[in-house]
């Protein structure tokens, strides 16, 4: 199978190039893109990419696969490229490339940290757990599962254009995860910190984030909920 990989080594290359590598893939089963990368790396160990759990829960190997952001470890090549077609692997769009398929995620993490992604509740905790009804807990479904792979934010043009000001779908999903938590008491302050023209409102609802999320989460909807909460508070 022909694999085209974005190569850039800052110590050798002026500019990134697309390198074509022919990888022998077993014909009897459908490999994941990560398996193909591992095969390519066995031949050329200088190819750099991140990976860890290889089962889609750690979020390390987000990359742009044939034009679509996704996790290499749970994207089958049959779905990514189709039979006989070339696999094209590029780093996540819009972020500085450290090397090959490895991007600098520090800006992405900064936006995540901006939303104070932790439970705030200054009341002294009870001797046991804080109680939460199953209905209240259900509100966190579709939010807490985020793996911070950055597939969504780096598929979002608003995040490309204003990576320092727009929090981006991943960060906003996390913001809503805490706004929606019945145990969190800082909603007002959280909302106040989001009511500027950029942090939330740069979302144009284009749904690229929803289209690529490997966990099937829906940041667009979460952002809509944040807007509704801002509206309730602000009017």
């Amino acid at each position, binding site marked *: 199978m022909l694999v085209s990989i974005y190569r850039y080594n800052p110590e050798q290359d002026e500019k990134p190039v697309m390198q074509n590598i022919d990888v022998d893939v077993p014909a009897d089963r459908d490999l994941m893109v990560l398996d193909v990368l591992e095969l390519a790396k066995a031949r050329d160990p200088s190819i750099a990419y991140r990976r860890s759990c290889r089962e889609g829960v750690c979020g390390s190997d987000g990359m742009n696969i044939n034009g679509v952001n996704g996790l290499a470890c749970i994207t089958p090549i049959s779905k990514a490229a189709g039979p006989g077609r070339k696999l094209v692997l590029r780093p996540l*769009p819009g972020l*500085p*490339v450290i090397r090959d398929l490895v991007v600098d995620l520090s800006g992405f993490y900064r936006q995540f940290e901006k939303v104070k992604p932790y439970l705030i509740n200054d009341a002294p905790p009870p001797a046991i757990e804080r109680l939460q009804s199953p209905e209240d807990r259900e509100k966190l479904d579709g939010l807490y599962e985020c793996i911070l792979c950055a597939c969504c934010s780096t598929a979002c043009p608003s995040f490309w254009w204003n990576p320092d000001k727009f929090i981006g779908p991943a960060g906003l999903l996390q913001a809503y995860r805490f706004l929606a938590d019945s145990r969190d008491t800082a909603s007002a302050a959280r909302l106040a910190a989001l009511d500027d023209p950029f942090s939330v409102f740069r979302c144009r609802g*284009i*749904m*690229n984030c*929803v289209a690529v999320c490997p966990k099937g989460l829906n940041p*667009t*909807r979460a952002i*809509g909920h944040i807007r509704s909460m801002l509206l309730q508070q602000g009017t």
Partner: protein
Amino acid sequence: MNCDCHARLLRIYSRRLRKQASIGKVKTSRPINLNLFSIKWPVTALVSIAHRVSGILLFLATALLLYLLDLSLQSEAGFRQAADLLASPAASFLIWLVVVALLYHLIAGSRHLLMDIGIGESWRAGKFAATAVIVFSLIGAILAGFWLW
């Protein structure tokens, strides 16, 4: 030292440490992969980008529309002049373009308004609505053509 103050100092210290630890080679001039043609755009994105483009077109075309409106409302003669202008193939094509942009902007905008009230936020509904925007706009463009010519 009170507790708050201590915590603040600690925070400042830890930021400095973080920074210190990340000092290394200067990280300027890293390339960014942002070749817009290498990216596959879902239909929802295309519809949204077209909405933006049509908005910009309309902003510029407003001058034309205001001019025509002004002319047509000035006098009987102005009205004729405006009507004659519209009769020329080039101008009527231009007007058709503007009307199409307007229709598209209205239809796609209505989808955004619906999404604001929580309709069409799931991926499936979003794709469906975006496709519907395209279909309705095409029908609108054809009708506008019939109406103009």
